[in-house]
């Protein structure tokens, strides 16, 4: 009898994958170790218009001085989403929640929940037939809407130093409905809500940041790729980079992966402006996100065994440097308690508040079927009713 490993030729398959990874890893490490050695000294040449346009401060790494949290109030907003496709009904269930942490001088965290502890979810039904893709977009927009509306509303009730959103401060490009979609107006509404949020935080004097859990951005990689020829010219110690195929390395790396290798714990990346890439530059247009010149982003390494946080910040009319200094000083101690998991504690709490589990909603479907008078088999999709599952 052959074992499963033999049948699947597991050894070879794994070996192949490992080799692939090793080759890339070696290159990335070689590249990163050169950059790491000059991370504080390298000047990103802000005299170049290209650099100026996209980068706020000069070095690859900046040491963050953590602030004493005691007395601080921080708000985390998160939304949970559950999309349920029933036959002929598209149910979108969302729950947005704000957790406000107050770090007391007694070295204790107390929490306020808004609108309340265990906020009940909001349930919406869409009856017009829509495509799978539209259904996905619609659900995602509903969640965003709930989150941002709550982020605006919570500021009327609780004042905090810092308001953290779980996720970006801009709609993701994948959230844009297809052309002529019935949800286009919803998308526009959300863009308007972001504007409203920005105005509100300026009014209330709250710092606003979005923490992106698993960012796939390559923005810095692209800018850096453009800058590197100039930098190599001016810095002899970078000449070694020429021996590496650095363009490929940059093209195949995410920013978070790069900064994980280059930043030490307690350091942040340079601040990147999130304005539109100039169409005349060689930096390819980033199609991933909507861009906005009032927003900046940076990476902050808080944990030894986790990727850096990707943080977007609304700076408004203020000096981005001052604001980032403040925010990173707060985020660092809030996110560095777990060596293997980097996320501000308040967002961890908000996440568990907002999270929706399908099992919790079974009773809802049962009641729905019951009241409509359908057997559940007519309501649920066939793929969810597969026997032997």
């Amino acid at each position: 009898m052959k074992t499963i490993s033999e049948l699947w030729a597991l050894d070879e398959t794994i070996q192949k994958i490992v080799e692939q990874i090793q080759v890339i890893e070696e290159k990335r490490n070689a590249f990163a170790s050169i950059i790491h050695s000059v991370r504080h000294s390298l000047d990103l040449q802000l005299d170049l218009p290209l650099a100026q346009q996209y980068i706020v401060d000069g070095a690859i790494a900046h040491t963050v001085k953590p602030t004493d949290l005691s007395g601080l109030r921080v708000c985390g907003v998160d939304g949970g989403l559950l999309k349920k496709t029933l036959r002929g009904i598209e149910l979108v269930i969302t729950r947005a929640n704000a957790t406000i942490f107050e770090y007391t001088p007694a070295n204790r965290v107390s929490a306020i929940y808004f609108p309340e502890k265990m906020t009940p979810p909001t349930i919406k039904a869409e009856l017009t037939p829509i495509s799978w893709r539209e259904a996905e977009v619609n659900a995602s927009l509903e969640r965003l809407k709930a989150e941002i509306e709550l982020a605006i509303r919570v500021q009327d009730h609780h004042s905090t130093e810092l308001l953290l959103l779980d996720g970006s401060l801009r709609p993701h490009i994948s959230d844009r409905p297809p052309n002529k979609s019935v949800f286009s107006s919803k998308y526009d509404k959300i863009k308007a809500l972001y504007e409203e949020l920005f105005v509100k935080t300026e009014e209330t004097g709250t710092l606003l940041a979005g923490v992106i859990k698993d960012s796939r951005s390559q923005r810095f990689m692209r800018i850096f790729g453009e800058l590197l020829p100039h930098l190599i010219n001016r810095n002899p110690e970078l000449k070694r980079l020429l021996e590496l195929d650095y363009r490929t390395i940059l093209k195949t790396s995410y920013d978070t992966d790069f900064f994980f290798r280059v930043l030490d714990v307690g350091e942040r990346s340079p601040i990147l402006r999130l304005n539109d890439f100039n169409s005349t530059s060689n930096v390819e247009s980033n199609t991933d996100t909507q861009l906005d010149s009032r927003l900046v982003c940076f990476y902050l390494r808080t944990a030894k065994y986790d990727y850096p946080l990707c943080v977007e910040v609304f700076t408004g009319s203020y000096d981005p440097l001052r604001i980032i200094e403040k925010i990173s000083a707060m985020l660092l101690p809030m996110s560095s308690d777990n060596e293997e998991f980097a996320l501000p504690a308040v967002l961890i709490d908000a996440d568990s508040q907002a999270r929706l589990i399908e099992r919790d909603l079974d009773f809802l479907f049962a009641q729905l079927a019951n009241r409509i008078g359908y057997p559940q088999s007519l309501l649920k999709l066939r793929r969810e009713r597969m026997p032997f599952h």
Partner: protein
Amino acid sequence: MKTESLGTIVCTEDGPSTENIEFVIGNRNEISTEKQIPVHVGQYVSINADEGLIIAHIEQIYKTNRYFSQIDAVHEFTRSGKAFGAIFPIDRWEYVLAEAKPLGIFNNGQVQRVTYPPSPGAIVSAPDHKILSEFLGFSKEGIHLGHLLFHDIPATFNLSKMYQKHVALLAMSGAGKSYAASVMLEELLSRKPAQGRPTILVIDVHGEYTGLAESQGAKGKTFEDQITVIRSPLVEIATPRMSAKAFATYSPDMGTIQVRELTRIIRTLRTARKGQPYDIGDLTIALEQDPSINVRTREALLGWLDNLQSLRLFGKTSTPEWSKLMKPGQAVILDLSETVSLQKKQIIVDAVLRHLFDLRRDGTIPPAIVFLEEAHQFCPEARRALAFSKGILETVAREGRKYNLSLCIISQRPVRLSTTVLSQCGTNIFLRITNPYDLDHIRATSEKITKATLTSISSLTVGEALVVGQATRFPVFIQVRERATKETAFGEDFETVTRRYDKKGKKTD
């Protein structure tokens, strides 16, 4: 009806059912600010359900906090040495859950079995005192032993229900058996003639009950006038009341032929004496002078009689005169503390009990209750451990009920007690017991005791008791009340006695 809401029934994998319900305890925030514990294991709760008012008993309480339910996360977040509460708002997420066992349904004074569970979401309340008292089967008057644990409800037991079928008072040493027995005695002695007063015999192995008769009680209470203390050296057993069989009990080697011969000789002696009392000396003479008896039988009988004589327990008449002492509302404390020999103590107990049994059978004395301390010495289970008093105790245990002669068996070693006696006890009162063998034995002899109950016996504190059996409808945990009379020096602690001894020494210096 005044009810205080304690919590709300939640769903569990197997509940709520008729066997088990779980409820989450009320307003957490209130609780944490007031710093009071809202419910205890052992407490009773009530739930308004479809069938009526369910009364349930809290068997377990536990806390949950989702912040601590993932071990790895807790570990990782606390590695830095920072307190978890400084990172997350843990206080807000602590919940207290109680597991309760539905006992029955109370409907207009009737108690029924629970045949339909309460609903999730149902409110769990503190039960109304009057209802709970009735539900558990306490009576308005009777033996007031203390109060129901965690409830301000008097634990008063109906006299008949408690003593009709004997009581066993079992606990490890120092748990408060003698104390509880004293409380019972106070209750029995306080009864008014209209209520009916039994007569009482206390077989006091250590002489620790004499305090009941002393005048300077803690609350100035004394039962001086109702108590007679008999010291064992003064006890005499009436030889004429002894049959040959009774002699054989104390001389177990005696064979059937010897018993028959002795029977004949006793009969002859009785006829000759024409009702005049005689003692063992007289019997010995009669035996020596008997012409027809086989020499070897005579020698053997003489040996046994001589042995018994040397105990100096047997006289012509009975001292004290039991029928005169055993009056309604009166108690005799038979103080055996001066008698060292266990065999002698057993003979006294045997003879006295046989006598009482007879007196009770022919109605000479009122219904009686016999308190027997260190019962395992008088009716041990093991066959090897010969005990002269075992036979009569087993007889009283089996038949006493018919004649209203009731036992209150007190022992710290239930496992060594005769199962015949123990199984005849309708009511068991347990104080703290930790010995696993004793606990196993109890479990085996009482079907009313669940595993959970058994566990709680080992965690009782001094003065806390579990009453199981005829006296109540359900097993109940009670706090034995303070006694009104003085405790004998036995109850005093080591230090007090030491100090007094020292003081005495100084005076004599």
